[in-house]
């Protein structure tokens, strides 16, 4: 069993990330971005790339910092605390993991571009309102040496602005993953007005051309590339949601110590104390599942699936409790747009759905536990 304590390197990474984010990306930065109607901060992403975050999973040979999944989780956790908007999960985690599971020169080049922050990616998998890659119905029809892609994707996170798309489609004997530029002819992207004010898109593919070169990995066997990418994304998203929970909780406890009602600070009311304590316990327990998932992805990635689902399930239920208690304990002011706690609630809802909801992951855990 892996050691579940943060290493010294990880602690340093977390501290450094916190230092940077508190200055460059406090919740206020998210608010400003939202108020400006923007879903991406190119300058900040460039700074993150310069610090090695974009290349956190890119091999050093391709110019990355290659810190691994646990480290990616540490970064996602810190970003979650202050609701940082960035293409980190889509590009640096999901796309990078997919690409490094393909060993060819093209993938190597793409990884290098990820590490420098020069390219962003989005994963186009969902077709219905629920995550279910196995049920993909979008078709890639053989044409000459290449394919023609037709169909619709939805909830493509970071999909409106991404430079490239990873697209899952049905081929003759299975599923195939394509890596294509987002501006290729026949692609129509419609930005979605999301409750968490992040980038997401519905994307139509109308007879879009794809060459054999565009196939990531082997034709008809997308999963060998996609499965590790999805698991990496789920684990990092879980870490982000754990960070989000901690952020919402910190804000809530601070409010309990400050807000007065009935002649005393409300943190003196035992009923609230016990609920806050229970929430803290849930957050602590979830933290263990998060670090465990990161460790397994680094040390034994072929057998990490249950640990990853455990992390995502726990992160989801904990985040939902944290934001519900957070809004309720803030009272009226928590309902106002002027106060930040509502942002956490909205992001938690999106995080709950993305890459599989609580029930999806709890069922995965049950399946791996034999029931």
């Amino acid at each position, binding site marked *: 069993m892996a050691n579940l304590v943060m290493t010294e390197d990880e602690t340093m990474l977390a501290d450094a990330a916190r230092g940077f984010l508190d200055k460059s990306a406090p919740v206020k930065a998210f608010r400003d971005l939202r108020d400006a109607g923007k879903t991406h901060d190119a300058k900040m992403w460039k700074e993150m790339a310069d610090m090695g975050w974009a290349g956190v999973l890119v091999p050093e040979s391709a110019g990355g910092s290659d810190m691994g999944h646990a480290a990616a989780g540490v970064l996602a956790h810190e970003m979650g605390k202050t609701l940082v908007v960035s293409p980190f999960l889509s590009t640096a985690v999901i796309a990078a993991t997919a690409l490094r599971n393909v060993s060819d020169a093209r993938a190597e080049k793409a990884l290098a571009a990820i590490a420098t922050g020069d390219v962003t990616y989005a994963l186009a998998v*969902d077709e*219905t*309102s*629920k*995550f279910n890659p196995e049920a993909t119905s979008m078709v890639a029809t053989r044409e000459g040496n290449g394919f023609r892609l037709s169909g619709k994707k*939805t*909830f493509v996170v970071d999909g409106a602005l991404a430079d490239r798309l990873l697209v899952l489609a049905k081929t003759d004997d299975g599923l195939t993953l394509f890596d294509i530029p987002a501006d290729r002819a026949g692609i129509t992207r419609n930005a*979605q*007005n*999301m*409750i*968490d004010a992040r980038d*997401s898109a519905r994307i139509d593919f109308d007879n879009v051309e794809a060459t054999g070169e565009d196939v990531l990995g082997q034709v008809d066997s997308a999963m060998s590339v996609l499965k590790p990418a999805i698991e990496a994304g789920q684990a990092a998203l879980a870490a982000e949601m754990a960070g989000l929970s901690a952020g919402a909780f910190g804000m809530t406890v601070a409010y309990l110590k400050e807000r007065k*009602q*009935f002649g005393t600070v409300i943190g003196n*009311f035992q*009923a*609230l104390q016990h609920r806050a304590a229970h929430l803290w316990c849930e957050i602590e327990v979830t933290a263990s599942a998060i670090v465990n998932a990161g460790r397994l992805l680094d040390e034994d990635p072929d057998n990490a699936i249950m640990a990853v689902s455990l992390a995502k399930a726990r992160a989801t239920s904990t985040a*939902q409790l944290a934001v*519900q208690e957070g*809004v*309720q304990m803030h*009272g*009226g002011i*928590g*309902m*106002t*747009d*002027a106060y930040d706690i*509502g*942002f956490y*609630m*909205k992001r938690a*809802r*999106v995080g*709950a*759905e*993305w890459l599989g*909801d*609580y*029930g*999806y992951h*709890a*069922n995965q855990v049950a399946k791996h536990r034999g029931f």
Partner: protein
Amino acid sequence: MQSNQELEGFRVELRDWLEANCPAEMRGGEASESSICWGGKNFEFASDAQRDWMERAASKGYTVPTWPVEYGGAGLNRAQEKIFKEEMDRIGARSPLDSFGIWMLGPALLHFGSHEQKLHYLPPIARGEIRWCQGYSEPGAGSDLASVQTKGEDKGDHWLVNGQKIWTSYADKADWIFALIRTDREAPKHKGISFLLINMEDAGVETRPIKLISGASVFCETFFTDVKVPKHQIVGTENRGWDVAKYLLTHEREMISGGGQGLSGGRALGAVLNESLGEGQEMETTLRADAMRCEVDALATGLTLERYKDQAEAGTGAGDASAMLKYMGTELNKQRHELLMAAGGSDALEWDGPLGNRPADWLRTKANSIEGGTSEVMLSIVSRRVLGLGA
């Protein structure tokens, strides 16, 4: 008491009337806050059908079916009211008119108002002509309502009102406001408050919406600067406004609780969830289990609202126990909307997306367990006043 025969006669007559007068567009569909007919001078009807339905219902007293006929109601007794509800539910008829005047001010006036006040204020509410809002909370007085600071100085024939209210729902759309005003600063905090009626068009009244996490601007801040309120615009006795407020809170609680099915139009949660999921998608185990539990709890809570109404009819009011309805109803409504969001999946994550108002409605429910007394205050009321726990 009426005979069963008389009641059945009423039912048949009502059914025919509804058939002839309730427009097809006002039947069925999932109700939401945005589809409510609020009435008042500033209200924009969503459709002719909505206006017709309100006016036709008002002409029969069916906007306020249990109010006395002389004040604009239909004077229904409890047995008739049940039949009214059953027949409305049968065709899925929407409520023709809802407002804080109906839910809150009306009951307060019926109980504490003079005959003149009732005649003056109630019929315009029943006809949807005047819309009211509520001025209770202040920035420093949230759960601790009795500590309101907005003051009314006695100037002989009027009070001079200065101060600020918050969470004045729909104040920007309302014509009048009923408010708790401190008219005696020396008295103990519960004993120096009066319940005043104030015209929103009066000089010195200003209001502006508060933007909420749901994006909607239902709630407002309302400011009073040297507003003159004539002495006859008081409900109940001077400095005894807390009695009115307490009575009214009970009604607010029952209203907000909605019996756990407030905005659902009585539809089964699971059925709504199944629709949301889309074709060929099965309800996942944990979601289905939660939906079953929520449905069981909502049905029983709805029955409890009916039981309390039956008790009130029998002369034994719910009193402090109404805090229970507020607590259970609002917590259930939050659960229900969490489930609706989960069932909607990514379609529910988009403002005005494929599921319309669903995310805004979901976020709006989070205020249910805060407004009109938080769940924590409700539990404290039950534990102290019903169970006799605590010092």
